[in-house]
């Protein structure tokens, strides 16, 4: 399923809404999660899952092709943990 399919389905269930509004609603939700993570905030959606940001320390990596050592700067990476309810529903 893609974002546009999600929008189509939501629009189908809400025939009183304009498609462009449904599009805005879906985009708003994902943009807000992205913005929160970019600020360093967590997003916790009970039953579904939690998005957070983890900090990776700087390390010396290696170019796997040449074996050359390269400095990898510290960075922030997104992380998702599945909520208990969804995890249980995946394994009935």
């Amino acid at each position, binding site marked *: *399923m*893609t*974002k546009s399919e*999600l929008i189509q*389905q*939501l629009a189908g*269930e*809400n025939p009183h*809404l304009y498609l462009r*509004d449904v599009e*805005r*609603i*879906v985009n*708003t*939700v*994902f943009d*807000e*999660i*992205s913005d*929160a*993570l*970019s*600020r*360093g*905030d*967590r*997003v*916790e*959606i*009970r039953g*579904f*899952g939690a*998005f957070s*940001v983890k*900090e990776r320390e700087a390390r010396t990596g290696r170019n796997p092709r040449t074996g050359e050592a390269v400095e990898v700067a510290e*960075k*922030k*990476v*997104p992380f*998702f943990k*599945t909520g208990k309810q*969804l*995890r249980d*529903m*995946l*394994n009935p």
Partner: protein
Amino acid sequence: MAGETLTRADLAEVVYEEVGLSRNESSELVESILSMISETLIAGTSVKISSFGTFAVRQKSERIGRNPKTGDEVPISPRRVLTFKASQILKQKIDGSWDGSLEEEE
């Protein structure tokens, strides 16, 4: 990182402010989005949200685990797990290296 935590109520509030529907309907729509994604994943289908990321279900086969307290071996039953892979754009936004382009990666 001493950030704040957003909840589904915050997401509903942003939808309310952005679209101008009632608070009630805004929160129902957020709920619908989450349950559509969940239902799709439970059916075993991946969900790809462009410029955000992909949720995918992976099948894990049975393996032998160990009770860390007693050291006893216990079989871990086969199960399905959900993975989320952030898009290149989301990774860059979080890392502060996003240049504002919406070119789809991969």
